[in-house]
């Protein structure tokens, strides 16, 4: 079965942050994930989100919205 965008996102965030998928919340901010700038860049690259869109991304929910938007597009 193909991995859903949400699952792909949670897996990528969990791997980047070391936080268990079950402990991730949609309203968690990027800062709360404890990632430095390079970690965030790597995460965006994995999710194929352009780095210059970081200004519209504050939380996990924002990341998910970006993925959903891209899938719709």
């Amino acid at each position, binding site marked *: 079965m193909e991995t859903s965008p949400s699952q792909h996102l949670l897996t990528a965030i969990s791997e980047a942050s070391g936080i268990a998928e079950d402990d991730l919340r949609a309203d968690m901010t990027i800062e709360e994930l404890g990632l430095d*700038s*390079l970690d965030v860049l790597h995460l965006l690259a994995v999710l194929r989100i352009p780095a210059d869109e970081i200004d519209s991304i504050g939380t996990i929910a924002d990341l998910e919205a970006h993925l959903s938007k891209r899938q719709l597009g």
Partner: protein
Amino acid sequence: MKLTFQNDNWAEFYREAKDLFPLHWKELAIFQDKYEADIDYQRYLKMDELGIIDILTARVAQRLVGYVIAFLQVHLHYKSAGTMAYTDMYFVLPEYRKGVGLRLFVEFEKRMRAKGVVQLMTSCKVEHDRTEFFEQLGWTHTDNTFAKYIGALCR
């Protein structure tokens, strides 16, 4: 953490940044055993008046937490190419290095584009290598810089 960006003039910036400079210098200045930090306030002020300096600041709850200062000029070798930006210094307080640097440089590039700047140039210290950071942001690693202190040999 709500992060905000703004362009400051030199005088505004210096009032707050002078408290960050010692941290900045201690972490990044070269030849610290040879000379001390000694900001030329008046010359920066003059450059600001001439419009050839850009000061982008990052704040959290109105507290200055990071900055990028760049000189804007037309390159002597490429007069017709357009204005280019050369970072003079950049810094983020250690306790805010959770993506603030990334957001700061993305904002810096957007503002430079809006000003019609055609090329960005920056550098990083060998001891604080930011090559991967800048390459991930689409910058090209073009140069390595060397320094040699010869003050003790001057007559």
